């Protein structure tokens, strides 16, 4: 068959691609696609301006080195890889670190109100796992400001006409069409397994419809809600990733879940107090006397235990999150030295995060957004009182497995259709939903960056794929779409008939409680076995739920049951992956296997779905896989590309451990050339 050419399919339709998700990753993908002349249909559960990226507080990393500390993309690469305990493939990380300054400048040009220095330059602050001022920020609502900037650019593309190959306007067709309040249900695959569209559900009319596409990108964010309560938005159920995993997409490193050390406990959500609080000088402590009755601000300096600073003099309060969370857990859970509560007569699972020694106007200028959250939800003034915080599930390093093509200089081949491709031809993934950039632990302020960078890579990658494809997704047989639509409609109708005794929201709470208790900071194999048994039980009980709502209009009950089922499947990937990995690496910590074991486990976890017995889900873990892309077969394995920074033991006691070049940051002087000071393979 001839190569698919031009803007229209054989049937005369404008050939679009689909992006599911309008957080930073999805929106950036859309922008790159539009710039490449590829029209897009953009789907989102919520208006994209309300996507979860809006929550990000602290900032975005880029080694712009405006403070004369000797920072560079090379150091950024080294510290990211070291922070991730060497589990990340290094070429994508290098690509990201190299692109970061350009990304921040682009955001600046888009009008993001980044904080400024006296000279009118962008200001940068410190974040975890580094000694450099590398984090650009807009107050303490950076994610919101970044999301708005990209949202505005995409809104502009909603007004831009589609042009054909000769530059003639295609009447009535705009570059971006938005479908907001739509729930992605599944991809549509043709006979060869290639992804040629999606099935989605309109959350007002509840219509289940299929949409053709030349390619599809999932940018659907993380799965924090699998843990019940987390710092995530309530829409982050991971349902889309789970759905395509069940259709054959490989899920990578699922067991790597980041627990953030400092959040406010709450009944509906655990609200984050960003690492930027510590980046600006915030200090973590508990009273030395476990029965200390005085309120935090009245406890004199000498009676405080600044335990992070004491144990990690090099990085202090800014050790990476996995380490900080474990230390907090140790203090509160094992040593029972959390803040004492007079009323309950208990040491609460809480430590102090203290900003009261910093000038108020500085705090207002740089951190108002998060302090406002503390004030509103706790009802205490954080300018005057040390805040009380505890760790909470925050971010998933794992996600859909995606490929990359390494360039000669150790980075990514620009525009390669392999970049960000899942193992299903025509299906791409970008953002927190992919597993690519953070290894076993993500450094703070690297996620906004990886989301935008992944979008910058995915757009061109999909454009190349589309250009080279033989037949457009639009020219797949109609029966392919009808079949998919019919299948998903039938499933939905079945959901509406569920009239059992179990309450789906109750089951979700049970799942969250089990995962939270035994599958987060500390993992023990016997307890993980129990979690897995609990997932078995919940999968069985989920078949006996009551849908609670049979309305044909804006039904949330049936939608939630679908998400619940998908969450249970992902929970198993996470728990089973944790059970299998008998070592400690980054966020995955097993007291019985305290050391990192590179010999056996310096490899990605690759999970494939299998329907199991009694209708339960099952996971198959594989060491290698082959997938089709544009007429050829690509072979990949679980080995990690460590071609740029050689693995070594990961310790943060000493300053500069993450990158030898970092000593420059310490004395504020120009550092020696970083590459020379670093071992590289």
């Amino acid at each position, binding site marked *: 068959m001839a190569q698919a050419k031009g803007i229209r399919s054989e049937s005369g339709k404008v050939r679009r691609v689909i992006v599911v998700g309008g957080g930073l990753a999805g929106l950036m993908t859309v922008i790159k696609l539009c710039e490449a002349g590829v029209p897009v249909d953009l789907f989102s559960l919520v208006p994209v301006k309300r996507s*979860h990226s809006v929550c990000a507080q602290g900032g975005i990393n880029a080694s712009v080195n405006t403070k004369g500390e000797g920072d560079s993309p090379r150091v950024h690469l080294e510290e990211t890889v070291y922070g991730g305990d060497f589990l990340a493939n290094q070429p994508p990380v290098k690509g990201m670190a190299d692109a970061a300054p350009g990304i921040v400048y682009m955001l600046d040009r888009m009008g993001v109100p980044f904080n400024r220095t006296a000279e009118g330059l962008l200001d940068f602050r410190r974040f975890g796992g580094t000694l450099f001022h590398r984090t650009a920020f807009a107050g303490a609502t950076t994610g919101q400001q970044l999301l708005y900037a990209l949202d505005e650019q995409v809104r502009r593309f909603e007004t831009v006409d589609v042009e054909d190959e000769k530059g003639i306007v295609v009447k009535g067709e705009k570059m971006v069409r938005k479908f907001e309040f739509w729930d992605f249900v599944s991809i549509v695959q043709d006979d060869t397994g290639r992804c040629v569209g999606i099935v989605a559900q309109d959350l007002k009319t509840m219509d289940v419809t299929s949409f053709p596409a030349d390619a599809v990108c999932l940018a659907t964010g993380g799965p924090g809600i699998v843990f019940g309560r987390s710092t995530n938005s309530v829409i982050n159920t991971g349902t889309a990733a789970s759905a395509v995993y069940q259709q054959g997409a490989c899920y990578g490193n699922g067991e790597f879940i980041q627990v953030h050390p400092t959040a406010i406990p709450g009944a509906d959500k655990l609200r984050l107090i960003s690492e930027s609080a510590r980046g600006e000088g915030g200090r973590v402590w508990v009273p030395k006397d476990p029965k200390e009755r005085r309120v935090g601000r009245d406890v004199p300096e000498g009676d405080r235990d600044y335990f992070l600073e004491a144990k990690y003099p090099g990085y202090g309060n800014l050790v990476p999150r996995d380490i900080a969370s474990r230390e907090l857990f140790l203090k509160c859970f094992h040593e029972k030295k959390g803040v004492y509560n007079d009323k309950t007569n208990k040491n609460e699972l809480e430590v102090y995060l203290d900003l009261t020694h910093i000038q108020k106007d500085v705090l207002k200028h740089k951190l108002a957004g998060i302090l406002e959250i503390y004030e509103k939800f706790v009802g205490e003034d954080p300018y005057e009182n040390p805040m009380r915080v505890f760790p909470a599930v925050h971010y998933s390093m794992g996600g859909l497995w995606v490929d990359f093509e390494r360039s000669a200089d150790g980075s990514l081949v620009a525009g390669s259709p392999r970049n960000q491709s899942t193992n299903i031809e025509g299906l791409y993934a970008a953002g927190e939903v992919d597993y690519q950039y953070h290894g076993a632990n993500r450094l703070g302020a690297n996620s906004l960056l990886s989301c935008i960078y992944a979008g910058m890579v995915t757009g061109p990658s999909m454009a190349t794929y589309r250009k080279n494809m033989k037949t457009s997704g639009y020219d797949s047989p109609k029966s392919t779409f009808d079949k998919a639509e019919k299948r998903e409609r039938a499933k939905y109708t079945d959901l509406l008939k569920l009239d059992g005794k179990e309450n789906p929201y109750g089951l979700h709470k049970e799942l969250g409680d089990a995962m939270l208790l035994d599958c987060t900071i500390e993992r023990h194999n016997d307890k993980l076995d129990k979690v897995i048994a609990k997932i078995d039980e919940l999968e069985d009980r989920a078949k006996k739920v009551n849908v609670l709502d049979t309305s044909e209009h804006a039904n949330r009950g049936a939608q939630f049951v679908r998400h619940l089922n998908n969450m249970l499947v992902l929970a198993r990937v996470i728990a089973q992956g944790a059970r299998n990995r008998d070592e400690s690496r980054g966020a995955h910590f097993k007291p019985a296997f305290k050391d990192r074991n590179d010999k056996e486990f310096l490899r990605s976890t690759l999970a494939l779905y299998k329907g199991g017995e009694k209708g339960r889900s099952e996971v198959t873990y594989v060491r290698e896989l082959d997938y089709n892309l544009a007429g050829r077969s690509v072979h990949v394995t679980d080995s990690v590309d460590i071609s740029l920074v050689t693995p070594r033991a990961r310790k943060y006691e000493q300053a500069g451990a993450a990158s030898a070049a970092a000593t420059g940051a310490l004395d504020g002087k120009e550092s020696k050339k970083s590459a020379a000071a670093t071992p590289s393979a």
Partner: protein
Amino acid sequence: MSDKKIRLKILRQDSPTKEKRWEEFDVEWHPRMNVISALMEVQRNPVTVDGTKVAPVVWESSCLEEVCGACTMIVNGRVRQSCTALIDQISPNGEPITLAPMTKFPLVRDLIVDRSRMFHDLTKVKAWITLDGSHELGPGPRQAPENQEEAYPLSRCMTCGCCLEACPQVNDHSNFIGPAAINQVRLFNLHPSGSMHATERLEAVMGEGGVADCGKAQNCVEVCPKEIPLVDSIAQVSRATTKHMLFGWLLK
């Protein structure tokens, strides 16, 4: 927990064409409870005070920390985000809590309304910087810290709809665009690159439904959860449009 109960009185409607009705629910009190966690309790046990099993109430929400704008509704007669509506503050002595959907937007179901007009208005006022492209072109224009300090509060608008809900000029008989979009005109006209297209934005809020339709009731600032100086924004944009009307042709 405790046996303290919270009573929720919720204005429900299955769809725009169905009847409105009030339903009441009792839920168990928890420390640090907010309206959302109370509604979540209703989901786990959707039974009214008179023992009737009903479909759980539906509402819109996402971030739960008052930064996405999704969960806006009328709580005890006042428009606000329900995530920051803490039970102990809005019902200190166990008074019943009323929840109702916003009234200035088409109803979808229960507490969900359709705010798409607000997003269309952002298109109308061209609330964006006209970028040459996302490729590397170096940093943006240098800006004094004071510029950032003026722009940042304006750019925290969540498109939540509180200001439109509270504005008497926003009603069935008027096309008033409302404070949120006008504030965006100010924001983008402040920016060194954005100001290059200032007149297009000003022209979008001149004429019918534009900035001149503001009745100066000042309700908008009262209800804005992010304390955006909306009245200032309206005044500034209003002055700029007047100037443009009087002298704009001279500059052409």
